[in-house]
């Protein structure tokens, strides 16, 4: 297999290297990729949409249909991870509990359990993790600031690099930090599974909903200038606000899906123990 692989790789590499003879020089401003459609986007983005960041305006306004299906792909990936891995049957192993005031560790065999909300016993993981005060304190301090930064990245997608995806991933990563520094059940208590699924669907729904709203108001699908009929801004600002609305939808969907994929992979679908 290795020899066949090597031969295939050498042949394809040689073909591609031969094909680079026709390419334009690297950095050429007159190459075919730079002279057909993109000069129009660069020249007209500020006067047509009032958004200085050309990448955001192309992503969310000129090519907004592609971005809607990209959000659907992320939603489908999150749901596939959930469907593949989620099991509801309890693993038949022993569970470990610790008495909080004295520190004594109990091992409960078989199917009996101690109820979750009891005030004297807390559940600890089967794989022993050391108790680390620095990581717990620092992560508890950092998580609100990470979330604030994620909201800033979303809101400033118009003027600086950023937007919905980057902010959504950072917001999801804040929950993952909580799950790694403490244990998985602490993070799941703050962000339950039902909330997770609903938020992922809500993100895609906001995106398609704004498009359908433009359709109901008389224009084409995802043509934001129709939003100026019901909201008190003019047609150019309506595009900027439409972009902000759909970026919010993408933010919510990406955040929920990142947490969903992590929780399902690290706990093998059982949602009780993890890294």
């Amino acid at each position: 297999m290795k020899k066949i692989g090597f031969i295939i790789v050498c042949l394809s590499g040689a073909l591609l290297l031969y094909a680079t003879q026709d390419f334009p020089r690297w950095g050429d401003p007159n190459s075919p990729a730079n002279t057909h459609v993109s000069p129009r986007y660069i020249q007209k983005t500020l006067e047509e949409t009032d958004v200085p960041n050309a990448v955001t305006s192309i992503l969310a306004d000129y090519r907004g249909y592609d971005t809607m299906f990209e959000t659907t792909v992320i939603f489908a990936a999150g749901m596939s991870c959930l469907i593949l891995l989620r099991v509801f049957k309890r693993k038949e192993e022993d569970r470990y509990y610790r008495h909080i005031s004295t520190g004594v560790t109990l091992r409960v065999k078989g199917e009996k359990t101690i109820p979750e909300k009891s005030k004297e016993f807390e559940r600890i993981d089967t794989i022993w993790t050391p108790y680390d005060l620095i990581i717990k304190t620092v992560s508890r301090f950092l998580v609100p600031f990470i979330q604030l930064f994620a909201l800033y990245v979303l809101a400033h997608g118009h003027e600086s690099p950023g937007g919905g995806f980057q902010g959504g991933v950072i917001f999801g990563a804040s929950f993952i930090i909580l799950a790694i520094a403490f244990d998985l059940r602490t993070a799941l208590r703050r962000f339950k599974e039902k909330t997770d699924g609903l938020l992922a669907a809500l993100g895609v729904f906001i995106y398609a909903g704004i498009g359908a709203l433009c359709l109901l108001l008389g224009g084409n699908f995802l043509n934001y200038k129709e939003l100026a009929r019901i909201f008190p801004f003019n047609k150019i600002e309506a595009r900027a606000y439409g972009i902000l609305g759909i970026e919010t939808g993408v933010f919510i969907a990406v955040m929920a899906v990142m947490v969903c994929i992590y929780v399902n992979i690290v706990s093998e679908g059982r949602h009780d123990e993890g890294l």
Partner: protein
Amino acid sequence: MIPQLDIFILTLVIVCAIAAISVKDLLGCAILFGAYSFMMCLLWAIMGSVDVAFTEASVGAGVSTVFFVAAVFRTTRRTKD
């Protein structure tokens, strides 16, 4: 687009890629994969595409490495080749 910086980081990228597929320990592979992602992010930032670099830094060098380590935690760590 300083050419010396370009060539230096491209060489580092190729070295990281070859190392990531050659080590026999999957946790080392995960860390090298994160380093490869981060070098790619630097390369794109040098070329001027700041949006793509931001996305790759948060997605590739952040969340993707965490998924990889979580999967290695639930499967085995050694590999035969």
